[in-house]
C-alpha cells in the first residue's frame, strides 16, 4: 500500500518542483526583459516658450544623444528664424521693409506663409498671421496684469487682415498693403518646428519617437514593445486628468487650450487664443485637438478651429480629408469627429 503511494506521489512531487522552476524562471525573465535591446531615450529643453520633450527609440545611446541634440538645435533655429518679437528678425523686417513694396524672402519662410494664407482663406480669417498688431498688446507671460484698452485693440485691429499680404511665387517676394501691418507666426511655428525635428531624428537613424512641444506633438514608428504610442489629451477642466487617450503611429496631435496661457483680470479669464476679428480671446471652446499627418497643419487648424467655435469648427474638420479632431466647447461638451470616434478613448461622455 505504502509502495503504491510512493510510486504515485513521486511524479506529483516532480511536477510541483517543475512548476516552481517554471514560475521562478518566468518571473526572473519578465523582470530583465531581454527580448529587445531597443529602448526609449528621452531629453527635454525649454524652447519656443515651452518645454520641448523628445523621446527616441534606438539601441545606441550615442546615436540617441546626437540625434536628440541635433533635433533640439533644429527647433532652436526655427524659433530664431520665425520669431516676431526679436527686433531685427526676418518677420520684424517684413513689417518695416515690405510695406508697399515687394521684399524678397527665403524660400522656407515663403512656403510657410503661403500655407498659412491658404488656411486663412479656408477659415475666413479665423487664422490670420497678420494678427501681430493685436497680439503684441496682450501680455500673457509678462508681469503686466492688465488687459489692453478697448480703444487700443480697435486701433490695432485696423491693421489685421490676411488679404493685405501679397505673395509673388515667381519672384519669391512678400508685400504688405499698409503701414502698421506686421506678421506673427505664433500659431504655426511650433508645429512646423516639431515636423522639422521629427525629420531630423529620422535622418539621424532613430527608428521611432515623439517630439512634444507643449501640446504640439508628433509621433513616428512604434514603441520598442511593438505597440503604438499611447497619447493622453489634457482635460481642459481638470489639471489632474486627461480627457481622452489615443494610440498613434506616424501622426501629429496638436491641442490648443484656454488653460495654456492666460491672465485673470477682474475675475475674468483672458487666454492667449485671440480672434483676429475682435482682438479678444475666442470664447467658443475650451480646447481643440487636431490629428493630422503633419504638426504644422494641425497647429494652424487647432488655432483656427478654436476661434471658429464648435459648430463651424467640427464642420471644417469633417470636410477636410485626413483631418480628425476633438472639440471641448465652452460648456464642457465634447464633440469627436467621425473618423476618431472608434480610436479615441474618452474618459467623459461625448455628445453622440
Amino acid at each position: 500500500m505504502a509502495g503504491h503511494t510512493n510510486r504515485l506521489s513521486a511524479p506529483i512531487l516532480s511536477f510541483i518542483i517543475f512548476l516552481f522552476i517554471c514560475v521562478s524562471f518566468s518571473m526572473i525573465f519578465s523582470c530583465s526583459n531581454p527580448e529587445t535591446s531597443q529602448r526609449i531615450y528621452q531629453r527635454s529643453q525649454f524652447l519656443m516658450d515651452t518645454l520641448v520633450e523628445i523621446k527616441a527609440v534606438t539601441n545606441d545611446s550615442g546615436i540617441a544623444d546626437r540625434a536628440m541634440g541635433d533635433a533640439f538645435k533644429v527647433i532652436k533655429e526655427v524659433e530664431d528664424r520665425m520669431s516676431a518679437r526679436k527686433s531685427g528678425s526676418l518677420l520684424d523686417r517684413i513689417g518695416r521693409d515690405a510695406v508697399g513694396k515687394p521684399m524678397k524672402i527665403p524660400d522656407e519662410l515663403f512656403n510657410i506663409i503661403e500655407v498659412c494664407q491658404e488656411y486663412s482663406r479656408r477659415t475666413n480669417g479665423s487664422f490670420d498671421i497678420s494678427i501681430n498688431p493685436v497680439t503684441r498688446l496682450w501680455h500673457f507671460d509678462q508681469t503686466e496684469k492688465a488687459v489692453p484698452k478697448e480703444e487700443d485693440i480697435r486701433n490695432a485691429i485696423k491693421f489685421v487682415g490676411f488679404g493685405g499680404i501679397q505673395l509673388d511665387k515667381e519672384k519669391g517676394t512678400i508685400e504688405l498693403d499698409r503701414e502698421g501691418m506686421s506678421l506673427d507666426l505664433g500659431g504655426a511655428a511650433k508645429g512646423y518646428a516639431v515636423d522639422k525635428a521629427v525629420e531630423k531624428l529620422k535622418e539621424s537613424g532613430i527608428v521611432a519617437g515623439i517630439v512634444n512641444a507643449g501640446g504640439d506633438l508628433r509621433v513616428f514608428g512604434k514603441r520598442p514593445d511593438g505597440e503604438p504610442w499611447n497619447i493622453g489629451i489634457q482635460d481642459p477642466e481638470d489639471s489632474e486628468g486627461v480627457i481622452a487617450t489615443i494610440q498613434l503611429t506616424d501622426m501629429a496631435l496638436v491641442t490648443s487650450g484656454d488653460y495654456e496661457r492666460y491672465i485673470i483680470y477682474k475675475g475674468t479669464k483672458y487666454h492667449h487664443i485671440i480672434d483676429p476679428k475682435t482682438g479678444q480671446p475666442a470664447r467658443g471652446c475650451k480646447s481643440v485637438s487636431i490629428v493630422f499627418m503633419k504638426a504644422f497643419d494641425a497647429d494652424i487648424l487647432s488655432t483656427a478651429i478654436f476661434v471658429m467655435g464648435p459648430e463651424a469648427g467640427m464642420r471644417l474638420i469633417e470636410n477636410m480629408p485626413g483631418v480628425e479632431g476633438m472639440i471641448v466647447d465652452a460648456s464642457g461638451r465634447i464633440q469627436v469627429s467621425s473618423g476618431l470616434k472608434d480610436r479615441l478613448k474618452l474618459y467623459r461622455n461625448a455628445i453622440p
Partner: protein
Amino acid sequence: MSSRFFSHIRHTLTRADIILIGFLVLCTIFSFSLWFRSGSGQKVIIMVDGKKVRQISLKNEKKEIVMQGLKGPFVFELKDGKVRMKDSACPNKLCVKMGWISQEGQMICCIPNRVVLKIIGEKEIYDAVAR
C-alpha cells in the same frame, strides 16, 4: 493527515531534494518580491533648465520642498500621492494656478523659472500628453 503527508515526504525525498525545493521556493519568493516592488511607487522628478536635479517618491510623502530655479526659488508640495507648485519666482504663477497633479506622465511647467515637476512610474501610462 498532515503528519502522514510529511512522514511520507520524509521517506520519499532525500535531503538533497528538500534543499533543492527550499532553494526553489526561496527563488520564487525573491522574484515575486522583485515583481511587486517594481510595480509600485510613483515618483516626481524635478527638472531645472531641462536637467533632472532631484527625484522623490510620491508614496506616503507629505512635505514642502524649496529649491532653486533659474530665476529664483520655487516651492512644491507633496501630499496624498499628489504634487503641486506652491510658489515660484515667475510673474504670472500659471504653474501655481495649475493645481495638483497625480497621474503618471502629467507635469507642471514653470517656463519663466525653467522648472518642471513631472510624475513618473515604473511603467508610464502615457508616452506623451498633449496639453
